């Protein structure tokens, strides 16, 4: 069930009415309701997916309990290793098995060996990358004694499967979400208002900006790419850059808005990434719940920046390459992650050489200069992840010029037409350092803004539900 499908508003309206009816005193009953709703939400895609979700839940709940019960460090280490192996094993099998088999076959073919390796064409369960990382954070945190194991199986099952963030994040940490699940939630007017803003803004970003941008860029990356020239490659990549951000951050906003309506708080996942001043700043703003997960559970265990400069550079690169692989079992994702790894390492080398902090305070002019300078580098990364072949990327890269063709002009006009609300809102958010700044408006302008966004969605929203881009991860 997708947030932008017809059925979801009906589903949520029923769940929310019952949820509010139960009230915070019966929060465990509310948890039961949300768990049932979450399994229904997920099973709506394919009931078979529920088996894996249930399996992950039971295994990590049991391992968490055993970790808590024993003080023997060797046993604890074995238990957490078991959790990591099982979770990554499931993820690896369902997400990467066919990719590795196909890649091996291609490599052997390139070396002159004709082989027919068995492929299973495994069905990829929606959102498996997200909930696998989420459950892993639980067992690892219990192992590190950063949190106690929970004894509330119902609550833990809800933590793994909570429908607003189950299929595309934010990737929640057990230490943050479980305490919210295991206590009464307060639904206040302030939270409901903030939740509604996130819902309306998220849906607007998805159905109007992202989907309209996709209508510009998808045909250019599709059958037409060999004919692109002049500014058209730029328009294609710019369209995709707008599409992917509004699509994914729109989903995160909707997820966080739904959570707020029910009294929960999810992690911030996007903090104006297109106003980043450099690679390291970008990753403090883009998919924050993943980048901080990779930092805490991969970069730091690898040694972080504790092993000298070279080891730091190596760790940064490895983490980003694996982050790319997390996004998808395909070479463009790995190349995209590696590309950002290289950018991060270069920025770090440059900063180390000059003895400065890459995220040091900047003047307004310095900040905007760096924002503008980082944009081309970011766009190249977007082209890497969107192109389906090296040929396509090379064609786009080498046929780019400043010639404003009719197709480029039409694409730019459409992108500008639908993106200006995003630019204005984000400039205000950036200027005030407050992502909820629209709620500062007086009552009547605030109501006008809400109404304008809703009316905008009614008229300009793309009708055919377009699947959220990040579902494929």
């Amino acid at each position: 069930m997708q947030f932008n499908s017809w059925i979801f508003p009906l589903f949520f309206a029923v769940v929310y009415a019952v949820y509010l009816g139960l009230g915070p005193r019966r929060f465990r009953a509310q948890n039961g309701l949300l768990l049932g709703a979450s399994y229904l939400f997920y099973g709506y895609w394919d009931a078979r997916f529920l088996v894996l979700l249930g399996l992950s839940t039971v295994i990590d709940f049991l391992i968490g309990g055993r970790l808590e019960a024993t003080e023997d460090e060797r046993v604890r280490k074995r238990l957490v290793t078991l959790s990591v192996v099982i979770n990554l094993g499931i993820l690896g099998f369902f997400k990467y098995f066919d990719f590795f088999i196909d890649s091996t076959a291609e490599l052997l073919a390139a070396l002159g060996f004709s082989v027919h390796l068995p492929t299973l064409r495994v069905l990829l369960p929606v959102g498996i990358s997200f909930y696998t990382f989420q459950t892993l954070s639980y067992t690892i945190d219990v192992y590190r004694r950063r949190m106690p194991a929970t004894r509330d199986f119902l609550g833990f099952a809800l933590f793994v499967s909570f429908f607003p963030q189950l299929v595309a994040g934010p990737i929640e940490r057990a230490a943050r979400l479980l305490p919210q699940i295991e206590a009464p939630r307060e639904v206040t007017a302030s939270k409901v208002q903030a939740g509604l803003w996130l819902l309306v803004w998220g849906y607007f970003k998805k159905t109007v900006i992202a989907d309209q941008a996709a209508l510009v860029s998808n045909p250019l990356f599709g059958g037409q790419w060999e004919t692109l020239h002049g500014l058209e490659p730029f328009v294609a990549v710019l369209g995709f850059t707008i599409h992917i951000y509004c699509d994914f951050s729109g989903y995160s906003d909707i997820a966080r808005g739904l959570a707020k309506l029910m009294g929960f708080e999810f992690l911030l996942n996007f903090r104006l990434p297109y106003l980043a001043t450099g690679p390291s700043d970008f990753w403090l703003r883009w998919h924050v719940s993943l980048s901080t997960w990779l930092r805490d559970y991969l970069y730091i265990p690898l040694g972080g920046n504790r092993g000298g400069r070279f080891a730091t550079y190596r760790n940064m690169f490895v983490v980003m390459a694996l982050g790319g692989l997390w996004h998808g079992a395909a070479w463009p994702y790995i190349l995209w992650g590696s590309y950002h790894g290289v950018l991060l390492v270069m920025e770090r080398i440059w900063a180390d050489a000059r003895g400065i902090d890459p995220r040091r305070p900047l003047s307004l002019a310095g900040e905007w200069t760096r924002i503008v300078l980082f944009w081309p580098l970011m766009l190249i990364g977007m082209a890497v992840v969107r192109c389906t072949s090296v040929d396509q990327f090379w064609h786009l890269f080498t046929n780019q010029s400043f010639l404003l063709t009719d197709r480029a002009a039409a694409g730019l006009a459409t992108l500008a037409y639908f993106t200006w609300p995003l630019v204005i809102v984000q400039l205000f958010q950036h200027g005030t350092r407050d992502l909820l700044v629209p709620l500062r408006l007086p009552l009547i302008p605030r109501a006008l803004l809400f109404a304008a966004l809703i009316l905008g969605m009614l008229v300009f929203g793309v009708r055919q539900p377009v699947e959220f881009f990040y579902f494929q991860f």
Partner: protein
Amino acid sequence: MAGINRIAGEQEHATGARAFGLMFALVVLLVLGVNAVAIRLSPVSERTFDGRTVATKWALASAGAPAGGVVVIGDSSGNFAVETTVLEERLGVGARNYCTYGRFLNLGAGWFLDHALKDADAPPAVVLVVMGSRTFALEADGFTFASIPAAFGGWSERIPYVGLPAAEVLQFAAARLFPLYAQHRSFEGGIRKGLWHIDGSRLPIGPGGTSVLPRAYPNGVAPFAEKVLGEIAAMGDGPIPSVRDRAAMKGLVQAAEERGFDLVFVDGPVWEGLADREEHRAFLAKIHGFMDEICEGSERAQRLPGGLQVFPREVMENPFHLTGAAAGVYSAELTDRLRELGLPR
């Protein structure tokens, strides 16, 4: 401020239940107010070429079917291929083309006939149901049905007597109550490009109801055919024709017997490249099989014999849409076959 702190976060904005309730009510009022204006300003049929086709054909049907003449209902293949002037000239009776487009299915196509029969002094002699194969692979939606300028709920009294499922009834209601949503293409075109009126000269509709496509699009024909084959494949093991189409087609046969006109199921024109495909042939065979089954034993209903009329892509806009003189060729062949059947009687 700069450095890490320059990254925006979320700040708390306290509001009371009353202030929030007031804002919420204001938002609802604003949205409903604009929507109310849209309801007043919007015609039932959208300001698009499809909407214009529906409105024009409905108005044509309002004048009543030609007594003793030929009425054509069906999808866009019939809309562009059946020239009423050719029918009138070669058959010597009046002819009207009420064909619209595929998403109306057999059910919606029947509603045009029903509307045309309501005030007619006498029934037409022949009713042709012209459909391209793709129409049998399409799904209906309430928004399409709602584009007919007819009363909500009126479908329960129309031929064919086939009800709408709840989802389509809701869509029908939504289309009438929320034109901003249902007619978004009109409003988007009007707001973005100032296109508040349709330029009828770009897709002229003749006095008999035949639409004329201005030019062929040969390069688009084969890709479209692949899409159609995908839609056919997506029907899987389900019944072909669909349960909905079966009921509507039976209803049309029944109407022919009750009201005393001859009903002929006719294959619309098709691109030769698609007609040759095995998947398409198998799909069409199932449809023909069902047509033959419901016409068997009927005095009034039959399927037009003689096989498909196929055309090269050079004269087509898509695998089912004819352009220019090809429509005349199709119509002439159609009249020849009708005469061989002794129709009109």
